[in-house]
């Protein structure tokens, strides 16, 4: 080994030793300052490198991101559709649960649930169409209710569908009983869908808020089905009867599922009604 190479070896060993001591912390504050400066430089270089790398690889990532974005948007749309469907099911379930509660609290009647699938094409009539018919033992004249109250009665039946005359129909008339006033009256529908009471005796006191139930008179409906409440009363001394407007318990604009009372048979009392006899 010549003197030059020996000199180089010694220099390397010395520098190596100093570095080893510095990295091992044996050189104290001088070592820490050196290593921290080294780390800072390393950090700066690394961050700049990553910046450059992002800059040069960005176009590829945009394409990837766009694809991924489209996938996620499609997924969001799908999930939104699922949410809407589930909300509809929740609504239906709530309605059905309310109807089940109602049928359990009224065990004297048997019910058949049906969905409302349409309305009468004529603007003059208030009829709805349900998806149950004679195949489900639905018969003409059966009363139809919801958990809120009376809806109407079956007007016509085919095998798998039936038409219901709502109590709001202008031609509908229901014998009712005013619970608080303890008197009978007749409930009429109208073209606007509003309900009104007529033939209330002048002798009784009817007040706003009085509960209206079916009386069962006439045999068309079972007794004690809720219809609604009195809103206003019109009582004029020169008239034979009082009239009242009624707030129905059922929201007829949002009928979705109804219950048909299948164990009720309407009674035709027409033969018992007195015939008009010609004056002698």
């Amino acid at each position: 080994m010549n003197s030059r190479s020996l000199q180089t070896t010694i220099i390397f060993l010395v520098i190596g030793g100093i570095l080893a001591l510095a990295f091992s912390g044996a050189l104290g504050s001088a070592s820490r300052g050196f290593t921290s400066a080294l780390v800072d430089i390393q950090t700066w270089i690394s961050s700049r490198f990553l910046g450059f790398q992002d800059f040069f690889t960005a176009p590829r990532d945009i394409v990837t991101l766009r694809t991924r974005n489209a996938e996620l948007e499609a997924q969001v749309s799908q999930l939104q559709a699922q949410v809407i469907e589930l909300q509809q099911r929740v609504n239906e379930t709530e309605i059905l649960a309310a109807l089940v509660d109602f049928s359990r609290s009224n065990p004297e009647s048997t019910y058949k649930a049906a969905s409302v699938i349409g309305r009468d094409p004529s603007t003059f009539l208030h009829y709805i169409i349900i998806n149950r018919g004679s195949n489900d033992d639905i018969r003409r004249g059966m009363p139809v209710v919801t958990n809120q109250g009376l809806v109407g009665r079956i007007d016509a039946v085919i095998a798998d569908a039936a038409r219901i005359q709502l109590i709001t129909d202008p031609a509908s008339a229901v014998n009712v009983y005013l619970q608080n006033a303890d008197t009978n009256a007749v409930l009429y529908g109208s073209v606007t869908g509003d309900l009104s009471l007529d033939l209330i005796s002048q002798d009784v006191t009817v007040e706003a808020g009085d509960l209206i139930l079916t009386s069962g008179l006439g045999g068309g409906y079972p007794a004690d089905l809720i219809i609604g409440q009195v809103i206003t009363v019109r009582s004029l001394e020169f008239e034979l009867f009082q009239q009242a407007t009624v707030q129905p318990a059922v929201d007829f604009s949002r009928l979705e599922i109804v219950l048909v009372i299948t164990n009720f048979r309407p009674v035709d009392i027409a033969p018992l009604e007195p015939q008009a006899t010609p004056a002698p």
Partner: protein
Amino acid sequence: MRNLIAFPLLGLVALLQTSIISQVQLLSGYADLPLLVLAAWSLQGRVDSSWHWAVLICLLVGFISSLPLPVIFIGYFGVVLFARVLQRRVWQAPLLAMFSVVFLGTLSFHVLSFAVLRFLGTPFVFGDVLGLITLPSLLLNMLLAIPVFATIRDLSYWVYPVEE
């Protein structure tokens, strides 16, 4: 043969009327899609099957509705009659004819329905019927007249193609 499109199309029209159109109310009135389709079809010059379509529509609506069948037949046949007469006289302005037929058809149908139902014992008030049912229905029918007319005119070109 293409006239057989009447069966599915008018069935669809009846379904749309009961399930959707009758839910879209203005006051207490709503549009009469079968009337509009029938009027638009009858106003097409080349069409010779408007009476057949009228019979089919009457049977479909009569099956669904509680309205007396004679009212439906007279009402819709009246619309076809108006349309055929007007089509011969004002054939150069078909849209004007459509509006006229819809206006007259809706009014006559409602007057007839009102009169018959009143005769059968339904306690209608004329003012209520006019203000809450007839006029809103008339407005909705007029609004729907243009798209229905355009659609039915295209359909008539398909059913009765022009011979070259």
